[in-house]
Every structure is written in structure tokens, then in C-alpha cells.
């Protein structure tokens, strides 16, 4: 499966593509919503490691606008529940992830992103 928790860590790795290679843009996606166990402690620790703007923008590409543009200082329950939903409950089943720099397209099929490159593209 690929959810935004994983997408927020992925970057393009085509040979020579080392800047502006994140976040991968989501295109032609099909999503499924599935409930996941809510763990506020996990979210609080993980939060500082997120690239926040990338998360907010990618959530928008998936039609979710529940997250604020800036990370709030007070982590109330409503915010954590929204964050939980965006990170862990939206499953991207099909679609493409496009590098903003080199435009390489990584396909997602049956919930599994294929990050393999052709031999000449490997850095």
C-alpha cells in the first residue's frame, strides 16, 4: 500500500536528478479509505520529521483539505485526528507519481509503487 506517510519520504532517484526532486506529484489516482488504529503518541513524535508543506499539498491532490498550511503549536485532538486520517487512512491504489524536476513517472499498481529504474537511469 502507499499512503502519505510513505509518500512524504519518497523522492525521485533518477541519475543526476538531485534537486527539486520532492515531493512526487500524484496524478490519476484512485484512492480507498480504510480505518486505522489511532495512536496520538506516534503522531506527535513523527510530526517534526514530516515535510509539512509537501504533506498539505499532496493531501490536497487527494481531495483532503483538513490540514492547516502551517503546523499548529497546540496539538489538539481534532488536529491529530485529521493528521491521522491524512497520513494513515487514505490508500493510493492506482496512479502515478511524477518527479517535479525530471518528470519521471513512477506507477502505483495494486497499492504498490514501483520505484525501479531502467539500468541507464540508475545513479
Amino acid at each position: 500500500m502507499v499512503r502519505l506517510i510513505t509518500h512524504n519520504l519518497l523522492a525521485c532517484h533518477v541519475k543526476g536528478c538531485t534537486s527539486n526532486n520532492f515531493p512526487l506529484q500524484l496524478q490519476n489516482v484512485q484512492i480507498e479509505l480504510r480505518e486505522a488504529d489511532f495512536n496520538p503518541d506516534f503522531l506527535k513524535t513523527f510530526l517534526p520529521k514530516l515535510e509539512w508543506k509537501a504533506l498539505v499539498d499532496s493531501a490536497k491532490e487527494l481531495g483532503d483539505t483538513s490540514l492547516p498550511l502551517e503546523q499548529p503549536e497546540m496539538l489538539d485532538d481534532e488536529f491529530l485526528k485529521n493528521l491521522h486520517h491524512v497520513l494513515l487512512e487514505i490508500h493510493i491504489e492506482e496512479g502515478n507519481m511524477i518527479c517535479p524536476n525530471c518528470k519521471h513517472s513512477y506507477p502505483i499498481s495494486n497499492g504498490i509503487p514501483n520505484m525501479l529504474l531502467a539500468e541507464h537511469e540508475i545513479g
Partner: protein
Amino acid sequence: MAPSVISTIISDNALKYEDTHVHSIYEQIAPHFSSTRYKACSQLTHCQPWPVIAAFLSNLPSGWVGLDSGTGNGKYLPLPYENPSRVWTIGLDRSSNLLKIARNAGGVYREVIRADVLDHPWRKGSFDYAISIATIHHLATYERRKQAVQRLLQAVSPSHGRILIYVWAIEQDELSKREIPTAYTSIDEEEQPGRDVFVPWVLSSNSRTEAQIFNRYYHMFAKGELTQLVSMAAKEMGLHVGEKTENAGSRRGIEIRMDGWERSNYYVELRCWTS
């Protein structure tokens, strides 16, 4: 009689060699491979993995995110059993058929991606921990095994990242039925004390078909070879190998916390540090 382990010599193109003798085999044996792994589990109350791996994953701070490089059927993704939502492990493998099993490992949706262990499709240093269990021994040259270690070092945080690596040992325990050929097959014995071998996987037959034998490639590690490999990989990246030093100037390093042998495997656990 069970087919035995035999020596092999790596062809010039290591990538093609791995394609033939590792990747395509796992694609074909994936469901059978996975069922034997889970069968072993069902005899215990919980699927108890090896103690060192279980302890490593149980002792991670809450909220950490990690990479399982070469996740196979994803059997380590559900850990730690006693508190599975404390940490989040993302699986990476080259075999799409194994990933189809891994994405539901333990009956829960898992995060998995398809890539080579020598790829680096991540923001640098974005993981808190990484594990590589029974994977690096499938890479066919010293350079590629070293590169695989370097990918793990790049994937985790330079200041607090933790890494655990397991590979097959030449020294097998008495429970193992395998006999390892004694002749060294490496061209350069001094640099590569391990042995390059084929280990047969028998896909059992039914009434109409004959049993199929797949010879998977392994580099079986000699004593001390894994720790040496990790040290070389780190030094090449400019990392200090040893305990954290508070000398003037900022440094990056790795500390080898543990290394040893457990049930036919060598393992090494390391932690990254910055000063």
C-alpha cells in the same frame, strides 16, 4: 536425497547474474517461500522471530519510522507484537510477488514499495532505523554488498539512526541440514573470505508435475566479514567508526553496538552519531 549446496562463480555482469539467480527465483517461488515461513510461525503462540531482531524492534523509541530493506514476505513489518503501533516499518523489495504477500503481512495493511536494495528513492536521512535481514548475501560482488550497506547508512538519520543487518554465515548450526562446500570460490580470497554458493529451493511436486529445483545465489559470510564490510562502507562515506567523540569540529560516525552469530547468521547492530 535432498539437493545439496554447490559452489558457483559470478559472471561478469553482477546485475544480470542476480536477476537470473535471485530475483527471478523469488518471483517464481514467492507463495511457497512465504507459506513455509508462516508455517514455522504457527507453531508458536506468536510468530517469534529471532531474539536479536525482536529486541532491536521492541527497544525503539515510540514514533519512529523505519525501512525494511529486502522485506520479502514482510514478516518483520508487524513487529513489535506487544505494541505494534509504536513504530512504523516500511518494506522494500524487488519481487512484486513477495510484495503482494507483504502488503498484508499479519492481516493488516502494510506500506511496501518495489525497488532494488541498491536504489535510494528516499529523502536522505528520513528514517529513524533500518533493518536488512537475509538480503545483502544475495548481492553478487563485494562492491555491491558494500553499496547496499551505504544505502542503509544514507537512509537513516545521521544523528540517531539505528541499523540491524543479518546475513547467512558459512558457520551453520547443527539444526541446519545444509553442508557448505569447503573450497573457496572467490577469485580474491584475501579480500572476500566468504563463499559464493547456490542453495537449492525445492518446489514440491504434485501428482502430475515433477519437483522443481531453483538454485538461489548466496554469498555466505565468513567470521568477521560483515563487520569489516560495514566499517569499510562507513569509512568510504567519511564516517568515523567507533564511539562518539566530542572532539572539536563536527564529526559523523557509527558505533558498532553488537555483532555476533545467531543460528547460522552473522549480525551487526550499529548506531549513527554526530558531534
